[in-house]
């Protein structure tokens, strides 16, 4: 009887799984028998530099930072696409050209909006 040509893959997968899982299971068994768990308030604490963490993580985040996100997108992400656009300019189809122009228009809109809002003025 001829075995399936991919049978060795199944065998190797099972062997790999056992190779990883058996030591983990042994370690778990050992820990259960010979190393009782001992959690506590300071052992289970999140912070591990010796100090107590004082306030909670639930703070109010300043929403004004959305301006930076938009301006970053305009100046940084645009640059990433402008260079390949310039390199491939001659070989572009009409569709590709239109797509990149729409993309640029969307970003320029953001720039105009930021300009009108006065974000770019140095105060």
């Amino acid at each position: 009887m001829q075995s399936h040509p991919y049978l060795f893959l199944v065998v190797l997968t099972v062997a790999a799984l056992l190779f990883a899982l058996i030591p983990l299971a042994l370690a778990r068994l050992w820990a259960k028998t010979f190393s009782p768990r001992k959690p506590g308030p300071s052992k289970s604490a999140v912070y591990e530099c010796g100090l107590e963490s004082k306030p909670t993580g639930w703070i109010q985040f300043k929403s004004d930072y959305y301006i930076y996100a938009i301006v970053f997108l305009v100046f940084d992400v645009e640059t990433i696409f402008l260079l390949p656009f310039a390199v491939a300019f001659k070989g572009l189809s009409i569709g590709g050209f239109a797509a990149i122009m729409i993309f640029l228009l969307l970003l320029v809109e953001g720039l105009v909006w930021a300009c009108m809002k006065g974000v770019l003025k140095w105060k």
Partner: protein
Amino acid sequence: MIDEGLQNEMKKQGVFTTSLQDLYNWGRKSSVWPLQFGLACCAIEMIAASMARFDISRFGAEVFRPSPRQADLMIVAGTVTKKMLPQVVRLYNQMPEPKYVIAMGACAISGGPFKEGYNVLKGVDRYLPVDVHIPGCPPRPEALLHALMTLQKKIETDALTGEKRPRHLQADAPSEFPIPEFGEHDLVPSKNEQLWKPAPVVRNE
């Protein structure tokens, strides 16, 4: 448990036998990971011990961990001030069991030259279960290596089961020691009563 005489006899014939407990202790003593944590000038000697000239990695203890979650040896290297002590005890509490403490240098043992200072703790063994004390001000790296070897000898004799097993193997033993707080005049509590039992002072009139 194999008889020790028989074990020696078999060793002479080239047959090496061991027990699970010995194997476990051998593994533990050969990979003691200290907490990367220095308080004063003794820490410089600790750093020197970890470098190429003294080379603490010969004993498997070169992996200084910056997180207490991964360390099992706390080398109290230097003067422990009362301001610093709560952090030291909290770090010790955060270390997983089994854990060991080496008090390195005169300051960690007793306060050393700063013993009379109002802000210096007079020995870290008032709050932590110290396994090995190293005298010296500061102790040389060789002294730290000797302390590590002494600790390894101690780990070797740890029992896995029975009445004599160490604290970390007893399910009902507490995992954490009380963290002192700043009181009006001193730390509260001023010592861990369960740990620190000094010999009574006898005065000869």
